[in-house]
């Protein structure tokens, strides 16, 4: 019949629904499904992409199928149908996945880059963050939740209002009207360097002054301990022990840190400075924030400066100067010796992370990767030789 079409594969049954399903044809759909699924033990997916309307009589057919087949999932549900499922609690009785609008990012400008995805501007008012991980719905959900939390706690940020499909990946859509990233401002208007340092530092302090209720965000220290654990096999034992001890003695801290704070994740929209790419939000000591900042502005360019200049959009020289100016402004000191010491502490954690990241991305399999890891390892060991604490 025209409303239902059942495809059986060796490990899955797909029921495609089309058009309108109401009391006139729901009994027929039910008979059809019943006939075809007799004795079925395979998981069932109902594809609702062709479904225009379903009445409550139709919904009950779905519920009946669900009762006889525990593993039932409904995908590509339109917003209208989803609303009914939500209102009636059907979405609590079965696994329901909404239909996503398909968006193409071909030719779109990259305006931001985060640990988990890339942000594109797809029209004048909207940007889409495309996640690296194909199965990113839970990440999107997480980022939405933490962005909402940040906003509630007073951090200006954009919250995604829609989830879309981009190729095989998912993207979340944000409204960002005529916004420009700080990277863009720095590369187009070098005379705004000092202003950028001021705003960038101001936001950083604001983040670090924000207290987060217990349990709402992950603890960065635990993440850093994982990085430390990872490099255990790649550095001498005594260095590992020292590093671990230094991380462990950093006190717990319930203040927010961004976790991936660089000039591509800060946007100027009108007069307002907005923080984006919130998925790495955590709580912890600022030294861990400085560590990831060190990497973005300096660390990744230590072996080849183009890794920094191509990513941020300005020279490595500018980038180093920017990082150091931000640190000095943040700490309110021009004491070069002190600033150098703190930068070194940050870079200990930073190098630990970079080594792990590169090895996990199969860095040891290329000559350049091996050279880079070797350089970072040497730097890390010499930093550990002359540093005894991450505290400042």
């Amino acid at each position, binding site marked *: *019949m*025209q409303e239902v079409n059942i495809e059986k594969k060796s490990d899955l049954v797909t029921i495609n629904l089309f058009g*309108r399903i*109401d*009391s*006139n*044809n*729901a*009994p*027929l759909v*039910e*008979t059809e*499904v*019943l006939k075809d699924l007799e004795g079925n033990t395979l998981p069932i997916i109902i594809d609702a992409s062709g479904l225009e309307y379903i*009445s*409550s*009589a139709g*919904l*009950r*057919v779905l*519920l*009946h*199928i669900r*009762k*006889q087949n525990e593993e039932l999932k409904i995908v590509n549900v339109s917003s209208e149908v989803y609303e*009914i499922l939500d*209102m*009636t*609690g*059907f979405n*609590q*009785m079965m696994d329901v996945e909404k239909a996503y609008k398909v968006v193409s990012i071909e030719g779109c400008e990259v305006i931001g880059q985060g640990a988990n995805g890339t942000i594109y501007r797809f029209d004048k008012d909207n940007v889409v963050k495309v996640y690296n991980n194909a199965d990113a719905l839970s990440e999107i959900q997480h980022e939405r939740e933490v962005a909402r939390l940040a906003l509630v706690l007073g951090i200006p940020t954009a919250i995604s209002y829609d989830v879309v499909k981009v190729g095989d990946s998912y993207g979340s859509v944000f409204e960002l009207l005529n916004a420009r990233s700080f990277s863009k401002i720095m590369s187009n208007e070098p005379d705004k360097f000092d202003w950028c340092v001021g705003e960038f530092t101001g936001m950083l302090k604001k983040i670090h002054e924000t207290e987060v209720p217990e349990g709402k965000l992950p603890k960065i220290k635990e993440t850093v301990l994982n990085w430390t654990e990872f490099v255990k096999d790649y550095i001498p034992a005594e260095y590992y022990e020292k590093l671990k001890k230094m991380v462990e003695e950093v006190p717990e801290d319930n203040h927010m840190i961004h976790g991936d704070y660089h000039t591509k994740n800060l946007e100027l929209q009108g007069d307002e400075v907005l923080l984006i790419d919130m998925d790495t939000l955590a709580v912890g000591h600022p030294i861990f924030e400085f560590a990831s900042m060190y990497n973005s502005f300096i660390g990744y360019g230590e072996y080849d400066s183009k890794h920094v200049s191509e990513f941020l959009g300005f020279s490595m020289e500018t980038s180093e100067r920017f990082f150091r100016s931000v640190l000095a402004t943040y700490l309110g000191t021009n004491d070069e010796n002190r600033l150098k010491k703190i930068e070194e502490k940050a870079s200990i954690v930073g190098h630990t992370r970079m080594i792990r990241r590169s090895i996990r991305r199969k860095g040891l399999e290329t000559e350049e990767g091996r050279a880079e890891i070797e350089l970072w390892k040497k730097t890390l060991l010499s930093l550990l030789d002359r540093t005894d604490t991450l505290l400042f």
Partner: protein
Amino acid sequence: MTKRPVIDLHMHSTVSDGTDTPMELLEKVKEKGIEIFSITDHDATKAANMMKDYIKGESVKFISGVEFSSRDEQGRYHILGYGYDPEGKSINDMVEHSHELRMQKVHARIDFLKDEFGFTFSQEDLYKLLAKDNPGKPHIAKMMVAYGYAPTKEVAIEQYLNKKKFKGGYVDPRDVIEAILGSGGIPVLAHPTYGNGDQLIVGDEMDGRIRRLISYGLKGLEGFYSGFTLKIQKEILGFAAQYGLYVTAGSDYHGKNKMVILGDNNLDPEEEYPEGLVRFLEEVRYY
């Protein structure tokens, strides 16, 4: 404490649109371990009349049942009647009245198809149609498809049969409730959220409906139902508690042609039953 009984108070037999005879239902009910049941055919008390003889000596308890379709200016309702006297005059008059209205409508529809579109059917097929207990739009639509008047049943209903409008000719819920009460029965609103089966009524709209029907004499709500989600169930049980109504539980089993499982109504004998259901089971009449 004594174990709570397994119950299913909403099912259909071959007297209306189910595929099991009342006797077959009795056997299946026993197999399923259901302890209290009722057969609720559409606009028919025949099963209750049959069952009162069959049930003698059985361990399962039977409650006479019926499901009337009704309608007024404000909407459509399916109203269940429980524990009535199967020989009661008011309820059997209502069954007859409903049947007559239905037959009148079938005749009117057949005439309409002939006058408006020139669709005619053989005497034999018409006779078969009218011999059914409760012939309706779906049966006529099926014939239209067989005759090639419409490509599908849906088209037959939407583009032809629904063009015929009826003024009046419906059973009023007030009369249904009165007829059930008049024969000693308990009137209960079936699957409240779904109205006549295809609607979706929640919140204030549901509240308004229930209040109106209570003013006509409604005594209970079907709070446990195979097609309910937990959210809907909670809402209906909330209304029942708020207005001190009886609560019933039913699957709406129709036999082979639907996926509804006999006995499935989300009621768990391991859990405490709501007060309205306990009271119903104590106060309703059994056979």
